């Protein structure tokens, strides 16, 4: 078998040593009547060569973002990933180790976690960060649970309609059995008026959940929302876009008490939705309520600086049902990728990527609305995404046409916002070239369809596939 060592001689010697006649004898604790008495109905085993051809074939049936020019966003983005990240994260010492339970032989992982936490604090301005959670959506739900715990309020949570629909669905799932009322404040103009939030919060409200830049790409009035929340003793939880912080004020400056994000943009492949990275940082005062692993600095017996998992009395393996969360791992490898990304970018690099996103998105917004068919749905400053309305009300038809022309052009919004059934969400990252944007703007104009898409910045092919 593929990865087994034991030869028939080994097996014989081992059984003799154990004192049984057959491997089957080792399974006697499985009662006869509970055993599966037939082979599993699974496809036959494949050699590496067969498997490689088979999976490559399945992979080839998908339109990846090298084959189609990607203007899709909505919480996952086609940002550029520097080669250094893949190279370092594919070191076996990183990806085949586990949670650093033995710090003496896990300093690589622990120091990287500590550096990740520091980088996230630098990025957000918050006091403390954990070592990561699963993804942006579940991190947002965990942040709300943290707010409920910190404020000792479980009556009410206020969420803005402009928060990612998936995140709101997750929150609703997590709160289903906890008796908490989830109030959604409408975002008719693509953003939420802080006055509407001020009217929705009260002394039973644990927190206000806002996304900035929001799901529509629009900027929210976070500082005013924070004031509204704080006035009634509630916390402000901000979902942020890590790339945007190259330009925008940091969550701490805006008054956020907890800042969470999807970290995929920081050097993590799209991978059809995961594994991604849940970023979570908060004020110092809440650190003992923070879910997830945390690395801390200490010294060893020789007085050397070193790192360990710390504040574990928050966690499930010690506190069991009284733990802050059931989470028992972080997304170590994804946090490592994000840490490397932020180190490579530095302050200047992050500002450059963010500026490219804002400016290219502004250009695309302008170009795509020149033809007369598409118009801006919301008159509001944006970061790297924006909502367009199809005056003909044929969003899916336009998207299909764009697909024909070589584009994954945008997300139809009707699935989440029925009143935006004639709208789509377009994302523009630093990877999109002027030629690509111009070509997309030609879709459905004049001769219709346009030609083949121009070459994107990156069109390397892998050795395999």
């Amino acid at each position, binding site marked *: 078998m593929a990865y087994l060592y034991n030869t028939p001689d080994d097996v014989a010697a081992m059984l003799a040593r154990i004192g049984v006649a057959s491997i089957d004898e080792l399974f006697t604790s499985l009662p006869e009547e509970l055993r599966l008495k037939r082979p*599993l109905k699974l496809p036959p085993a494949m050699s590496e060569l067969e498997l490689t051809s088979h999976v490559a074939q399945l992979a080839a049936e998908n339109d990846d973002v090298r084959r189609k020019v990607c203007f899709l966003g909505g919480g996952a983005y086609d940002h550029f990933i520097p080669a250094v990240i893949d190279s370092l994260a594919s070191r076996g010492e990183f990806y*085949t180790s586990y949670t650093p339970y033995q710090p003496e032989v896990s300093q690589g992982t622990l120091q990287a976690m500590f550096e990740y936490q520091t980088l996230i604090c*630098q990025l957000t301005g918050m006091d403390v960060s954990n070592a990561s959670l699963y993804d942006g959506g579940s991190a947002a739900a965990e942040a709300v649970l943290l707010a409920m715990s910190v404020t000792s309020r479980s009556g009410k949570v206020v969420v803005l309609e402009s928060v990612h629909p998936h995140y709101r669905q997750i929150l609703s799932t997590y709160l289903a059995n906890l008796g908490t009322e989830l109030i959604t404040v409408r975002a008719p103009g693509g953003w939420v008026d802080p006055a509407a939030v001020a009217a929705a919060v009260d002394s039973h409200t644990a927190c206000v959940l806002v996304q900035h830049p929001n799901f529509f790409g629009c900027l929210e009035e976070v500082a005013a929302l924070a004031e509204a929340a704080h006035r009634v003793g509630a916390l402000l939880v901000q979902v942020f876009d890590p790339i945007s912080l190259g330009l925008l004020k940091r969550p701490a400056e805006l008054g956020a008490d907890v800042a969470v994000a999807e970290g995929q943009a920081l050097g993590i492949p799209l991978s059809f939705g*995961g594994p991604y990275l849940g970023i979570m940082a908060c004020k110092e005062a809440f650190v003992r309520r923070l879910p997830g692993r945390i690395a801390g600095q200490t010294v060893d017996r020789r007085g050397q600086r070193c790192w360990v998992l710390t504040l574990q009395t928050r966690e499930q393996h010690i506190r069991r049902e009284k733990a802050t969360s059931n989470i028992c791992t972080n997304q170590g490898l994804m946090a490592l990728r994000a840490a490397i990304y932020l180190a490579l970018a530095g302050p200047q690099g992050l500002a450059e990527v963010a500026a490219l996103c804002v400016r290219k998105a502004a250009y695309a917004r302008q170009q795509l609305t020149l033809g007369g068919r598409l118009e801006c749905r919301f008159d509001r400053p944006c970061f790297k995404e924006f909502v367009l309305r199809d005056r003909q009300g044929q969003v899916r038809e336009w998207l299909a046409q764009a697909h024909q022309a070589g584009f994954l052009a945008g997300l139809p919004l009707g699935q989440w916002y029925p009143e935006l059934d004639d709208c789509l969400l377009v994302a523009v990252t630093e990877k999109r070239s002027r030629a690509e944007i111009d070509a997309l703007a030609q879709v459905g104009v004049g001769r219709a369809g346009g030609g083949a898409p121009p070459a994107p910045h990156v069109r390397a092919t892998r050795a395999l596939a």
Partner: protein
Amino acid sequence: MRNPFSTTLLFELSRPGRRAARWPQCDVPAPPVEALVPAEMLAERPPPLPEVAEPEVVRHFTNLSTLNMSVDTHFYPLGSCTMKYNSKRNERLAGLSGLAEVHPLQPHSTVQGLLRLLWELAQMLAEISGLPGVSLQPAAGAQGELTALLVAAAYFRHQGQRRTKVLAPDSAHGTNPASARMAGFEFVTVRSRSDGTVDLDDLAAKLDPQVAVFMITNPSTLGLFDPQVAQIAQRVHALGGLVYLDGANMNAILGKARPGDFGADMMHFNPHKTFSGPHGGGGPGAGPICVAAALEPYLPVPVVVERDGQYFLDEDRPLSIGRVRSFFGNVGVLVRAYCYLRTHGPDGLPQVAEHAVLNANYLLSRVAELMSVPMGRRCMHEFVASAATLKKQTGVTAMDVAKRLLDYGFHAPTVYFPLTVPEALMIEPTETESRQTLDAFADALARILQEPPELLHQAPHTTPVSRPDEVRAARHPVLKWTPPDADQVDGGR
């Protein structure tokens, strides 16, 4: 050979003006940022990230990696974590652009190959578990538990029943009680007997119509298959409750017995353990769940379905609990699980279980000559030794033994878990180790037990750092680096 500078932090390497990654000049005629974003929303300056050069980033993290033990470099018998070999072919295949560079919200027609792979994976998990309903969405085993408990809650609510309690044995992982609590249940612990099986009298005393779910890890964290499981399931079912199987230890029974056949209504898999997804220094994992047909309508959305040879994600499921994470799930981890299952097939999977159990029993036979193994002479995929006697006689603890093993080049077993065994050392060799490695480990353990206690108390002696002061780390938390000139202000180090 070890680079003495590897533990310098990125922030200490930073020098103003140094650069690594650079992005292209803006190629569109757009106004400057200041004209596009209101001034009051713009930061005065970018975040104070470190400023380092590309070569030093590479050297820094490469050197850091060498401070880790890993499956690729060392025997890693960390009990309950199933640290088996992570096959390189799976890494390469999961990295194919047609799988790794696919956006999660692409039209279904553009991801047919990937959806087919996921659908086939779900079919395989259903067959292995004996439970037909599958959700691939949960991001980890713990989230799988939470999801299944939310499914159970929705099921009972739909039946018009209000059940408030979740039960699990005292040997359960801490995630079980924590998940129960997050799902809004009261958690009740059921005692185990001294042989590690569930105490049926205690179960009978605690089982009532308020119990929604009984959670059982079988094989248990003691490495034992509880043969009463079908009987337990009968009792739980008789009162209308559901049985949840924590699939952490499925490696021992792949193709040998199916949870759906021995009474489980719901379970999760840990593909990062059982199906060799790499552990990534603590994640990502995945936690797909399988459920009985009656529970299927309550699974989270979306579910991957097949119709007339076409695959799509079904979001329209009115009884569903909703979502537990964004998008589809940890697809990269699921692709590796798929590759693992296709590599092993119907004959290979039971062999995995057989050799995992053979290796564990072989190592048990050797360790039992050196230390007490309270749960007897046979085990499934792992066993728990105890240093309790040793501690009484010499003062040497399970932790001392674990730390000294590091000096011999072995990752330590899981220590002090399960909580039901004093001075526990939980050892899981997995099937991807050789008899020679197991012998070398047992030989090292034999030598260690002959060594002076003082040497062991001070171990490890040869690792990059010696025992860290964990009390200090918790009492005076330093959770991030702060610049030296901030030292006086906030006591940062």
